[in-house]
């Protein structure tokens, strides 16, 4: 029973009074009507609903928050050949000048958002609560047993005692209850222009303490690295606009506070024409991130795709037939970071030679310089490019996590394969290494005695979808997180004690995110032994399959299905 309109209150009060006899007090009416029927809207051309405006208050126009995403890739407009030639010839200044001519990173966009009217209103409602209704006392006679004792203190029995117990109970009364309401007002859009600030030559040059040749603009990304710049029209839903920016998966530390324009701190209103300019300033390179995954699916020098998985044939034990594509022996991928990483390694060795000479002639770097060097992890020892790759095999399961089946690790020496890539016109391909990662001992690895690939020990279930996940780790490259073996001084975790407790730096913290190579196990070939093939060992798997669904369609197969 509600008392919506105040002119009915009298009548209702009479009815209520004539109601249950329990109420030993008067239901008071605290409702106060300050305004009524004010349907004026803050939004031009609209009115508020009549039944939601009694005692209207906190009436305001707020703007919703929305985001614009911009994905930043490494810039490749400058010829890597020319640039790396200059670096190799130690013409550092010329190389710096060349890359400083790269086009500025600038973009602009429009962020759509809504203005929404929000307000509170009150309704007169019957409530039972102490504020503001007050309380009344309700008493009861309670009977309970009280033990009796003799003179020695021994319990002799009990007697019944009556007692009056009183409680304060909240009254029921009529009062104003606040409700919130909102109403869409208009669609707005905010224009913005954004840019990465190129530091001045005075601020960032080849003599700057943390300078490295591969980052002449300070904000440069290396192959395989990407950033997502998320530009918000306002960081939260509010009457005032506060544009902001967040950089996802950032490879540098950034100052993103430089935002100017009419939109900053502006009042949210209808038909606005706000805009803002955003400048991202680079503070320094973030050296604590895992290596990026610069692997790409391979193409030949003419740009035609190469099949990533190389198979070998085998005899199926049961059918006796020879299956052409029975076991994967290697997976081929292009490492697009090879050019830059080997150049950095070469530079580091040259620097190390120079440092050694400097120390020898008594002009060693002073303590301050050395500290600066170590700050960005620049070691005075030169290093060789020794990219490591980890391959994991997963079986794809529908409606469930993929199940891990096995892993292996491969170094450059076993996997880099001759290629004619240098003939390509596409620079990314031209300076990339072709990796043919062996998956079995005879997959091109020349040390069959010690090497054990995934498929040497694991056999696949026929006609099931699998995934190879390939991750990269670039040892010694100062930009990226290092393993404890390669840089034992980086953290307390690398102390023997903690490593023995299993608290060292985990592999996943320095190996990159994986590149997934999906494929399907052959239909006709089953390399599993009799036990693995038997009903017993397959029972749990079959049970799970029965519950969660079994096979997954690969992306390539989905397309084919549609065509049919």
């Amino acid at each position, binding site marked *: 029973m509600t008392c919506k309109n105040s002119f009915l209150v009298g009548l209702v009060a009479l009815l209520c009074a004539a109601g249950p006899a329990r109420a030993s007090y008067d239901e008071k009416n605290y409702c106060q009507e300050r305004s009524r029927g004010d349907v004026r809207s803050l939004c031009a051309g609209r009115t508020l609903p009549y039944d939601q405006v009694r005692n209207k208050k906190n009436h305001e126009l707020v703007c919703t928050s929305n985001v614009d995403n911009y994905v930043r890739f490494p810039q490749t407009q400058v010829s*890597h*050949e*020319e640039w*790396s*030639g*200059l670096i*190799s*010839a130690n*013409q550092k200044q*010329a190389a710096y000048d*060349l890359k400083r001519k790269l086009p500025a990173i600038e973009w602009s966009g429009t962020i759509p958002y809504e203005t929404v009217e929000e307000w509170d209103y009150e309704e007169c409602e019957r409530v039972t609560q102490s504020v503001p209704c007050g309380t009344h006392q309700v008493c009861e006679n309670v009977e309970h047993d009280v033990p009796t004792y003799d003179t020695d203190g021994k319990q002799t029995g009990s007697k019944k005692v009556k007692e009056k117990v009183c409680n304060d109970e909240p009254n029921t009364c009529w009062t104003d209850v606040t409700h919130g309401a909102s109403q869409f007002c208009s669609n707005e859009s905010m224009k913005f222009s954004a840019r990465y600030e190129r530091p001045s030559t005075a601020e960032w040059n080849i003599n700057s303490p943390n300078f490295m040749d591969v980052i002449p603009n300070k904000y440069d990304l290396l192959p395989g690295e990407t950033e997502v710049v998320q530009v918000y029209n306002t960081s939260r839903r509010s009457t005032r606009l506060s544009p902001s920016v967040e950089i996802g998966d950032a490879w540098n530390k950034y100052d993103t506070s430089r935002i100017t324009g009419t939109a900053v701190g502006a009042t949210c209103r209808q038909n606005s024409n706000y805009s803002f300019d955003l400048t991202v300033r680079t503070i320094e390179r973030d050296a604590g991130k895992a290596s990026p995954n610069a692997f790409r699916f391979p193409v030949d020098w003419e740009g035609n795709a190469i099949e990533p998985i190389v198979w070998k044939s085998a005899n199926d034990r049961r059918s006796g037939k020879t299956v052409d594509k029975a076991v994967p022996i290697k997976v081929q991928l292009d490492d697009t970071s090879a*050019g830059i990483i*080997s*150049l950095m390694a*070469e530079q580091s*060795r*040259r620097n190390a*030679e120079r440092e050694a000479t400097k120390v020898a002639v008594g002009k060693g770097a002073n303590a301050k310089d050395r500290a600066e060097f170590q700050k960005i992890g620049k070691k005075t020892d030169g290093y*060789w*490019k*020794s990219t490591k790759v980890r391959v994991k095999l997963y079986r794809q399961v529908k409606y469930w996590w993929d199940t891990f089946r096995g892993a292996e690790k491969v*170094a*450059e*020496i076993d996997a*880099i*394969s*001759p*290629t*004619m*890539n*240098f003939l390509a016109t596409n620079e990314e391909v*031209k*300076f990339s*290494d*072709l990796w043919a990662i062996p998956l079995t001992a005879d997959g*091109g690895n*020349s*040390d*069959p*005695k010690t090497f054990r690939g995934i498929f040497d020990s694991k056999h696949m279930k026929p006609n099931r979808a699998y995934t190879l996940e390939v991750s990269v780790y670039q040892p010694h490259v100062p930009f990226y997180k290092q393993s404890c073996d390669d840089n034992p001084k980086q953290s307390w975790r690398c102390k023997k004690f903690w490593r023995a407790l299993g608290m060292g730096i985990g592999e996943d913290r320095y190996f990159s995110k994986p590149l997934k190579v999906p494929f399907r196990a052959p239909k006709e070939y089953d390399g599993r032994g009799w036990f693995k093939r038997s009903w017993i060992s397959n029972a749990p798997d079959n049970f799970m399959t029965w519950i969660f669904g079994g096979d997954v369609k690969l992306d390539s197969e989905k397309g084919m299905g549609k065509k049919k």
Partner: protein
Amino acid sequence: MKLYRTSIVLAAILATSVSCSSLEYGSNSTRAFREIASKDPVAPFFMQGYPIQIAPGSYNFNALDQTKVADYVLKQFEKVRGEDRAIIENAIKSLNEKYVAMTTLVYGNGGLSQKSVNSSANPASSSGKLTVRDVMQLQLDFDRNLSLFANDVATIDALPQMLSAVRYEPNLATAAVDQLAGNLKNVNFEQFKTYYSGQVSNLKSAIDRMDFGILLPSGAPFMQHGLSDLTELKKQKLFSARDIQELQLKVGRLRAAMNTVNTGIAQTMHPAMLKMLRNVITQFGERNRYRTDENDSGRKQAIKNIEELFYVRSGLRAKYGIPLGAIKVNYTMYAGNADKMLSTLVLDAGIARSIDELTTDQNNLFNALEGLNYRSARALFKPGRTFFSRVSGIVSMLKGQSNTVAIKTVLLPFLLQDVAEEVMLSTSAGWNGVLDGYKKRYNTKDGGDWAAARMMYFPKTTEKTGSAQQTRMDVDSIIGLKNVADLLFSSKLADISDARDIEKQLEALQMADAIFKEVGARNDDL
């Protein structure tokens, strides 16, 4: 050719004596004639078809029916006259076309004349002025076209060979014996030649009278008279300091762009070489544990392949003088030569390039080789081996490493030689040192084992090439790898040549520009 043959036939008909043949091929032709005539003595030879081999000489026609001869001769006369006319017309037509093109270049729309007028009309204004580069380009274009045209004019009379026949008027009634003239190039083109030569020099002098207004990079105007003499222009300051700096930088960049070569070698020859070496060690070493060496021919062939690969590397260094980089190896050395028994050599993926890296490499390889010899399981009882050496030999035999040690002992000297050459290229011994070493090893007096290999990989310019093998361009064969390297190095030389051109443009000819000739000569030297 057709004209030549017709005329020969005609001349042959007119000639009437066999006896006084004065030309060297007269006797052959006579024989041919006799042969044909003997088949049917009644019919004249021209009714039987032309004797193909009849050439200038003397022939006897007295025995033939003179009326029919006259009839034939007149018909042939007419035919030849028509062909001759066509030839002369064509020659003149093509010459005229070229002349028109030349004139257009000078007087046509956008031609030199118009450029001259536009650029020199108002000497003070900078509008319409040409740049120095424009003028140099104009001079180049004009000179090239003019010399082509002059060449055509000069060689016009080299075209028609047999036109003498046109003016040849035989008298059949009187000539019993007729002599065929030896020199047939008698047509007089002098008239055309004189005319067009005159036109050429007219054009030249017309250009020389033209003025070209040039805006120098400094902003000052300059008036160039004619195009034949640019000395005054060249005395001006033709490049701004900024231009010069940019060009110098470009020269630096071109010379520094060694990365293509390095990348190319790192992607092709280097991994292929590593794979070959590691595969040979695996096949004839690691997989041969506790086995006798049965596949002797295969082993020999594999070693031969490796040797050939290193021969190619040596040859490439000798030919171009550009370093290839050596395989990086790891080897741990212990005090007291303990590594001879303990350490193994590990091939690495890296490429050693700098002197320091190469020195380390050389030392590692040398010590590894010493160690391998020390613990060789072969010739255990050879006199001169120390006791511990023999023990090490027995140990490696017991460990099943005797074949691995043996194959490595064979392969390491190649790697050592490779490193030595690489070092040589960056020292004072240099390119010539490598070339001398190459010759000493592979170019013995009779060529030795390497004659066939040299023919295959580094054929001299005079030698016939073009087998399918030699055109291979891949990473699966030694010749393919060699061709890839050839391509890489010659592209590098192209860069050097570009750099040199720019330097020439800067008139700073201090560079050793004989490099191309030298490389060309190297092939013959190898």
